[in-house]
């Protein structure tokens, strides 16, 4: 906090607490991401879900996660992505156990979480900013907070005129998962060998993705009441078991045409192993992830 006196004014600033936390540091087992195939499912069809679970090398491998669909719609008054009822077992529909499961996306997804209404006179749910609707899938990992994957479901348009809904149905292409290209790592501009990183070194990390993975998609703009075309934005989440990352997340906005994103990892000052987890997400809910072993040598 910076303070100085100017003339007769002295004002010390308002202050936010400093929690001294490192959001990128994994200190206990946790679910980092869930990848579904297909990335955008038709309700009632089988979908494969793969959990991306991180655990630091110093702790035992976590037990298999338990998966459940939450069948409680989120009230519009709730900021969170899921209803508080999703924390109760009565609203859960068991989906399986294991790091990868296959389960049909509930057939009622578009009614419970989408634009379809059970009876006329009720308010259709609002889509997210990409026009998507999502079925919550809870993932319970022993010792970790409950994690929720939001499975994008294909529901079409219901609050639009019939001609626009029909046009949208023809133009809209369901989302595909993006793909991470191999990680590029450099130290001071030179290629770095991740199996031999000098202690305390600053490793520049760059991930990229194919241009085709930044999909353009049809979007119904409720303000214009017309179909427009949007382009996905991309986010990268970075996690590490040791050392320090400059940022926990990075990415490219919708209008940013660059196909890569970078970060800097400062290796620990002592030798040892570390794990780097990377998650790539597109704005429609598509996911890819990768894990890298890092060896720090004195």
């Amino acid at each position, binding site marked *: 906090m*910076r*303070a100085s006196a*100017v*003339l*007769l*004014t*002295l*004002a*010390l*600033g*308002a*202050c*936010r*607490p*400093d*929690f001294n*936390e490192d959001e990128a540091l994994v200190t206990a087992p946790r679910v980092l*991401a869930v990848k579904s195939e297909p990335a955008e499912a038709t309700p009632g069809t089988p979908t494969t879900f793969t959990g991306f679970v991180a655990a630091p090398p110093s702790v035992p491998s976590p037990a298999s996660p338990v998966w459940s669909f939450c069948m*409680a*719609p*989120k009230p*519009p*008054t709730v*900021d*969170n*992505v*899921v209803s508080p009822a999703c*924390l109760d077992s009565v609203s859960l529909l068991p989906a399986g156990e294991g790091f990868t499961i296959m389960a049909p996306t509930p057939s009622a997804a578009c009614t419970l979480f989408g634009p379809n*209404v059970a009876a006329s*006179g*009720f*308010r259709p*749910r*609002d889509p*997210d*900013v990409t026009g998507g609707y999502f079925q919550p899938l809870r*993932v319970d990992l022993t010792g970790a*907070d*409950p*994690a*929720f994957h*939001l499975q994008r479901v294909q529901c079409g348009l219901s609050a*639009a*005129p019939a001609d*626009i809904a029909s046009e949208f149905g023809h133009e809209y292409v369901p989302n595909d998962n993006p793909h991470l290209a191999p990680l590029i790592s450099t130290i001071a501009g030179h290629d770095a060998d991740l199996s031999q990183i000098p202690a305390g070194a600053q490793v520049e990390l760059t991930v990229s993705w194919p241009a085709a993975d930044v999909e353009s998609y049809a979007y119904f703009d409720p303000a214009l*009441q017309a179909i427009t075309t949007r382009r996905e*934005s991309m*986010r990268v*989440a970075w996690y590490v078991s040791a050392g320090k990352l400059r*940022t926990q*997340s*990075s*990415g*490219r*906005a*919708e209008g*940013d045409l660059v196909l890569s994103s970078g970060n800097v990892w400062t290796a620990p000052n002592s030798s040892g192993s570390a794990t780097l987890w990377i*998650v790539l*997400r597109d704005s429609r*809910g598509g996911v890819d992830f990768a894990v890298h072993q890092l060896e720090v040598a004195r």
Partner: protein
Amino acid sequence: MSPVFHSAGRLRTAGLVLATGFARAARAQAPTEPSLVPEVVVSGVRPARDGAEVKLTAARARREPGTQGDPVKVIENLAGVGRAAFGSGQLVLWGAAPEDTRVFVDGVQIPQLFHGSGIRSTINGDLLQSVSLTPGAYGADYGRGIGGLVRLETRDLPRDGSHVLLDVNTLDGAALVSAVLSERVRFAVALRYGWLDRVLTAVSAPDVGESFAVPHYRDYQAKVQIALRERESLDLALLGSGDDLTRTVHDSDPALARSLCTSSSFQRVYLRYRRVFEDAASVEVVPWLGRDSKRMNANFGANPAGLDQRALRFGLRAEYRSRILPSVTMRLGMDFDGTQADLSRAGSLLIPAREGDVSVFGQPPGDDTNSDTWRATALNLAPYATLDWNIGPLTLSPGLRIDGYLLETSRKTPRVGQTPSIGQSALEAELEPRLAARFRLSSRVTLFGSMGLYSQPPAPADLSAVFGTPTLGPESASHATLGESIEVTSTLSAHVTGFYRSLSELTVRDPAPTPHLANSLVSSGEGRSYGVQFLVRQRPWHGFFGWLAYTVSRSERQDTPNANERLFDYDQPNVVTFVASKEQANWTFGVRLRYASGMPRTPVIAALFDEKHDRYEPVFGSHNSDRLPDFWQLDVRVERNFLLGRSGRLLAYVELLDLTNRANGEEYAYSADYTQRGVITGLPFLGVAGARLEL
């Protein structure tokens, strides 16, 4: 007490409501007061007829500590007024929501009393005659609000010469010029321009702007006063105010970048015709026209949130007062108000937030987005009548107000393509009896009480078919007070007032997982607030002046019949304010001490991981079951008066806010995984220095 003469020729004690006629006679001025001081001096804090109203002169109020020379800010120091969160500028009166309190200038409603930061009022205090606060249970002449009432009266302009007033301080700069154009015509113009935002940017921490909003503000006023005939005048006035605020938080992750851009403004033009007849009857007519504008554009990553409101405002107040019997004074009036608002909104349903929303500081809104544009029209015609009936030691003031509402919206259901919209129209009538009574037990002790029914139309922003409910009706309330005033000495008095306010048909969010179409808001909210306020007041005595105000209260809400009762978001059980000033020769020393209970907050008891957004989200405990830390603040004001010639003076002042440098907690903040909680502190210490030149 200082006597005050009115044109009707009657003598009243200072501090009582100027109920008959308007002041014309110039008052004897204190030697140190310049000619710009208002002609009619109503000294000190004193309850009016119903005991709930407190009225102060602007000249006295601006010299109180904590006001930074702004007489309107003295309201924050009065009994019954809760402390607003830093930077909010909100008025919390007897546990009422800030948007339920109405503010009038010469009978013309304005949308906001303070600029967005709450640091300055939107009306230049040098144009004001008096500041009046009624936390509740006010008379039949005002309505359309279920909270409290703030009335500002502009002053008569000086009758001699030209005058210039300049006030420059840490917060802003202001200028006022007045002149006599002819024997019958006088005018004044005033302008204020705020620069605190730049001062804070230059001298304070970089995260001030992230936590608290200090907008760029300005306001302007003009007044022309025309003496038509004997005891007849016409005023033409212009009021204007504007606030702008832009905040941006950059991030390497576009999903975490945030921006907020808000602007608000209002303008009012009004005529004020006043005439006092030979029989002491009087008439006052105030037609007015104005515009309100309010815009908010925010982005939370890719999620937008925007609300744009532009409203044409118009109205007419007319009142006739007459003594119909030696002991009975009657007032007949008509209060008309119209609003035609064009609105557009996009983004989350939960932005802007409403009272009762559960969230934590900095939490992004939900993903759900939508869009709507609509027009809302509200016309309110309210005839009213009141009597002031003196029966020996008892004064009864019964009143009746009939509020008729015509509420129209352009769209009853959400828009679907180019399908023509079907509008909604409703007529509502509210019968609102009011009663005030005062009983003088002895020359030193007076009992008083008041009660009444109140209503207010729905806000235009709530009438969206997408984000609200087009068929919302008025909200209603009943108020009651009972109190006692004791004149301990000729200058020292004590007052105690108990109050109760019941609220019904409050507009709240529909908590159902799947609300009905075009029904996101429902009129199912109920609430009540009750408490007791104490006031010990020392009127000027050997240069000493001050008061001690303590309000103990509780305010509760129940959003739906099946919901649990909860504390109101602004509930503050204990609020204490001590204000004292001492004049010594050309020096004035003032001190203000404030204490307020922390406002309720909903605790976070756990967290879940939102894999889609790669963030944790809070799991909340019982609604409003926790509180922010208590608030303490000590302020000191010192001013030195320099006489310049026969009529001018220079006033130099320094005001030290939060002298003890206590870091008051203004909000809770949480770590990213919600395992840690900390307190965001407000401005620990702020020195305001300035000079005021009066010529």
